[in-house]
């Protein structure tokens, strides 16, 4: 048999990118389940629709770019984008809203920048932010928790945007929205006057805990390191706690911040996107902390229902800068460690 000439190493742990992506997809399932339990079938319908669209667009663009379709399609990256979008979009998203978001994510944010690995911005967040700016009304129709649509009703809304009793009967402001516009009340007065808030916070908490569970599983599988998510949660918690201590009537507590909105989804599934975040461990700490701070600022003083899309896109912008200043000290570049062991004689 002819002997081959290959460069070392001749060994590999046989891991694959597609397997990493699969783990990410699997880890979203608890969150998906919780979201569906509290807000109905909307998210599930969205997810299926977005996945189909993402694969379709991905294949189309790969064909246009003269790239082999099968290996790229099976790497799972398009599906991850679709999942994240579907989970982040409101359960009452009509079909076209998801389509616009997916189209923009896959075609513009990902492939026009060179495809997997080359995109400077998180594709899902670009699609989400575009819709947030272009269709603010549709993007704020979050489902209520007390009664959910049947699957048929939900599908009907999805295609035709009509639903028995009108959409207003089924949608509610999110807890974050309620807390930002307290109409002159303190947060405690708001909670006692509006039972929606308490219900919303409870549902939101369970959804976030479900995402936390999925995230911890990924951490255990070493799909990513702890640095970015922990830094983000710590920074968000720190600033929320600080302001809450100063003005408890105006600012929600740290735990409310950590367990509402898309906090955990973002912390474990979006901030950890390796392509668009900072690359070194130290860099990831800075990146995560930056996202946490921006989320707090935009949630507390901005005009949008949630803050993740903008916070993450802004930090995506700064990732190359962070990389430049957070290079780890390579072996032999560290100043000599002090000799505590009396090694020298």
């Amino acid at each position, binding site marked *: 048999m002819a*002997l081959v*000439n290959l460069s070392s*190493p001749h060994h590999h742990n046989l891991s694959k990118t597609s397997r990493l992506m699969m783990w990410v997809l699997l880890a979203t399932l608890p969150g998906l389940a919780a979201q569906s339990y509290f807000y109905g079938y909307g998210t599930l319908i969205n997810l299926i629709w977005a996945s189909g669209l993402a694969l379709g667009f991905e294949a189309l663009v790969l064909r246009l770019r003269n790239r082999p379709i099968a290996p790229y399609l099976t790497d799972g990256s398009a599906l991850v984008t679709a999942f994240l979008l579907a989970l982040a979009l409101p359960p009452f998203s009509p079909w076209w809203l998801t389509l616009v978001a997916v189209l923009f994510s896959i075609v513009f944010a990902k492939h026009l920048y060179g495809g997997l*690995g080359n995109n400077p911005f998180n594709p899902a967040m670009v699609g989400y932010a575009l819709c947030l700016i272009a269709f603010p009304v549709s993007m704020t129709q979050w489902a209520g928790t007390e009664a959910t649509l049947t699957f048929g009703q939900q599908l009907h809304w999805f295609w035709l945007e009509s639903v028995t009793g009108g959409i207003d009967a089924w949608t509610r402001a999110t807890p974050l929205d309620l807390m930002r516009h307290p109409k002159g009340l303190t947060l405690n007065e708001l909670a006692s006057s509006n039972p929606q808030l308490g219900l919303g916070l409870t549902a939101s908490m369970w959804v976030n805990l479900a995402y936390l569970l999925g995230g911890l599983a990924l951490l255990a599988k070493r799909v990513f390191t702890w640095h970015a998510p922990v830094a983000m949660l710590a920074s968000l918690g720190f600033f929320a706690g600080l302001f809450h201590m100063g003005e408890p009537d105006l600012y929600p507590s740290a735990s409310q911040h950590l367990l509402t909105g898309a906090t955990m989804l973002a912390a474990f599934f979006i901030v950890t996107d*390796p*392509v668009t975040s900072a*690359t070194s461990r130290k860099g990831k700490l800075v990146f995560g902390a930056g996202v946490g701070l921006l989320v707090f600022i935009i949630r507390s003083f901005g005009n949008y229902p949630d803050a993740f899309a903008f916070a993450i896109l802004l930090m995506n912008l700064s990732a190359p800068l962070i990389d430049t200043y957070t290079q780890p000290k390579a*072996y032999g570049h560290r100043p000599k460690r002090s000799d505590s062991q009396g090694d020298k004689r």
Partner: protein
Amino acid sequence: MHKIWSFHGGVHPNENKSQSNQLPIVVMPTPKQLVLPLSQHIGKAAKAVVEPGDYVLKGQLIASAQGFVSANIHAPSSGYVSALAERTLPHQSALSGPCIIIDTDGKDQWVELNPTTNPESLSKSELLNLIHAAGITGMGGASFPSAVKLQLKSDIHTLIINAAECEPYITADDRLMREYADQIIVGIQLLQQLLGQPRCLIGIEDNKPEAITALNLALSHNIGQQTAQHTNIEVCVIPTKYPSGGEKQLVEILTGHQVPHGGIPANIGIVCQNVGTAKAIFDAIIKGQPLIKRITTVTGKAAANAGNYQVLIGTQVEDLLAFAKVDLTRTSRLVMGGPMMGFTIQDTQTPLVKGSNCILAAADLELASVADHHACIRCGQCEVACPADLLPQQLFWFAKAEEFEKAQDHNLSDCIECGACAWVCPSQIPLVQYYRYAKGRVKSINSEAHLAELARMRFETREQRLADEKSAKEEKRKIRAVAAAAVQAAKRAANPTAEDPIAAALARVSKQKQEQQTAAAPKSSEEVYKELKTAAAITRTKLKKTSTALANAKAKDHEQEASLQQTVDQLTVKAEAAQAELKAYEAKLGLDPEKEKILLVAVAKTNAAIRKLEKTLATAEDSQALGEDITEAKAAHQIATQALADHQAKPAPAQES
């Protein structure tokens, strides 16, 4: 127990050591032919000291070390040197290089050996000389000449014996330690003696319990014989993690210190030696045997008799493979060294050298196949795995984009090419290949820059030298002028009544001329004209020279300035006079040099016109018209010639009149 530190990163590939570490070392019989590359160590190639046809004994020096970093090579068995020829070298490049080829005679007859009976009495330099003479190089794979590594100026507080053997599949050191632990300990003691009795830490991975037991047993034997103080040796069991056997990593594991960037362990008082090197030192000093054999692992699924073999240096791979019953039809990949850092060979006649610790004959699918790699998603697993604490993902992007400066900023040179990053890469990118490429390019760019710098320096030096020569000349000339002036001044001072010598000389010359003129009369007007011209030219030249001298004198602020000024004035007058005389004579002769020039040109021009016309006539059809033109031109030429002749003839009648 000695405290153990850790190093950043590292990976845990399947060890695959049990295939080859179960059976004792088998001594491979002497092969028919041995191929000994002159360059099988880091540094300069050795120089052959035998000729084809020579008979050599086992252990006889056949190539001697050249320069500081080099190593001797000895005949591994007795026989005839059949050739000095180019053979494929054991290297990734598969280039060939000069080798000594020995046809063994099977007698295996030793040269006379000089074993040492009381090594304690040997001085440091004697030990060093023995190690150098035995041609010992690092047995772990890098093959750096040991004598050079041990020849240290700085104080050494720790000797580290590398027994980690962290590469998967390789078990040569493992078996060596199990079977030769006593000799290894003695070798270590010799090293300690050479280095000024530093403490010794033996770093060994915990996946070799039998070897650890054997070493500890050997140590306890030793303590029985000697004082405890004398055996300051400790076996340090370290966790199995690739690449803990990397020199820098092992230093950090055992001492908590890092070898500074660009430095060697000796910079922080540490020397590292492989456990196989300690055994080779024992052989060299206690037995007097030079380095002519080693233990090599043969393993992989294609090897029926996987195990460890004691082979002679220079054994060709195919001989060993045949002895170990390797089915070459079952393998498409022969790796020399381990699967993480080894290189593939295609030529099975490649020889085993001092650093060849393993031959891995992998069956198909036993090792990772070359899959198409995917895009880098910066997942950072490589960064987690990197034992040098680099950012492999960034280095990959820089290498791919040929941004070598950035790659260097990210410490490309600190990459030890261990392969941990590529091993974990989920996109299966051959990262190490990218780094090797980038390193090669950086090296060539640097050497080009170095050459350009040298050229620039050469050019500048030359310019400087030319300028220096010029100014030195100028300086000399000035000194000469001053000296001459001084002599003149001295002369004048000695004889104040004498008139100015230049003026006197000039007067003499003019007097002579006048005499000549009057004596040689009657001269033709032409002669007179010529003389006048010469006289005018001479006076002009003299004037010029004196003016320069004056200028110099002025520059030097010399006392002779006044007299020179006088001379210049005189000469100016004279020159003017000569010129006037010349002009007057010309007028008298009716000569007009300007007019003569014009006429000469006219003659030449008409002549050329005729030639041209005649040439055209030879080829042209309208010969008549041309003929007329020629006649016309000839007439013009005639007129011009006549005018010139008239002009030149004029002086003659003038003189006659």
